[in-house]
């Protein structure tokens, strides 16, 4: 599982960071950083929650 964020859509509101702070971080420069692009299967449900809750539908999961 690889996390893909469309940075043209992302508006740095940090919803994903609240769900998975170990994977997503919005820093003081107001940009979103992906801390772990390829989390393990154990993180899948949290990442799926991020995909669903992102107000901009900016996050997707690539299976490769």
């Amino acid at each position, binding site marked *: 599982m690889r996390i893909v964020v469309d940075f043209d859509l992302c*508006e*740095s*509101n940090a*919803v994903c*960071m609240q769900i998975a702070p170990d994977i997503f*971080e919005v820093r003081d420069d107001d940009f979103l950083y992906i801390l772990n692009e390829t989390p393990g299967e154990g993180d899948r449900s949290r990442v799926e929650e991020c995909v669903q*809750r992102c107000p901009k539908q900016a996050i997707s999961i690539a299976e490769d």
Partner: protein
Amino acid sequence: MTQAPRAITIVGASLAGLNAAEALRREGFDGPVTLIGAESHLPYDRPPLSKQVLAGDWEPERAALTDPEELEEDGIESRLGVRATALDLNTRQLTLHTGETVEFDGLVIATGARCRTMPGTEGISGVHVLRSLDDCLALRADFEAMPQRVVVVGAGFIGAEVAATARGRGLDVTMVEALPTPLSRVLGDAMGEVCAEVHRDHGVDLRTAVGVEHIAGDGRVERVTLSDGSTIDADVVVVGIGVIPNTEWLDGSGLEVDDGVVCDASCLAADRVTAAGDVARWPNELFGETMRVEHWDNAAQQGAHAARCLLDAAVGPFTPVPWFWSDQYDRKIQLAGRVRGDDEVRVVTGSVEERRFAAIYGRAGRITGVLGFNRPRHVMRYRALIEQRASFDEALAAEF
């Protein structure tokens, strides 16, 4: 305990309704799912209507929340341009505006809210409200005609965003607010004043503590008369004075309606009937308070919760920390929690002068909310503390 429904009908094809439908499929429900919506459009996102779409930066298609292929793939049937006019819980039938009746088994009520209007302005063109895509395109067309003067009635979040977008288009804007300080009931006087200053700095003529007496024009709007007797010339007027939940179609259904459909803590309104989004009122056990929330995140999450509740009565209470954002000029304002105008407010990071800060709110020893101006990270961190029912002192001591 009642059985899970065989088929589920969702009335209201917008954010809450679509999230309910998608959640049903995610949870593995394989019976028929039908979305009934009064608008002719497939579900679309409303926040861009006062921002990117109104600004002319986005074409309306970009606000779409789904497309026919996606719905087909998920096996979600949609009936658009169809309004439900009555609900009969005994026969489990809906009446549609066409006169047709349709049976349902499980039901999600997601009919949202509509704008309050100013009485007496119905026949005057150039007077707008902003709720739907059609409203947005009508207002955008009036903005594109380069009016001399735009008057925004109400300095709430929608009014504020419309004012910001109109200024971004180079239009002259006067904003009229009945309260002495905009948003003071929500944010308190000090933070409301910060919002007021942001508008003034961007050239908005903000008039506070004054009401609108009368909007006049001969066919087309010409003038707004204020309660202090002054008048403002206007080519376009946008009225942003709050919303009313769409519950009239439930009159006589036996469902309890009190500024929204009254639900229990898990969003259940009656046997196999749930409600979600702007139309739903429910006791949020995290705050020990009954609330109706008019935010994007709530509609999406509550829609999903209401769907799960139909499938499994033991799903438990819906206990979110309400959260929303508002984009005005280059500021991203976010508020999480349940704050009141008289809560204690403390700036915890950043600088109010630079309009880049976070402030937390407290009442009775507990943190009740957090307001951020371009501080999303802090808002989300304090939101987690609110969720954990942290004390105000703990929150003040926290470092992020």
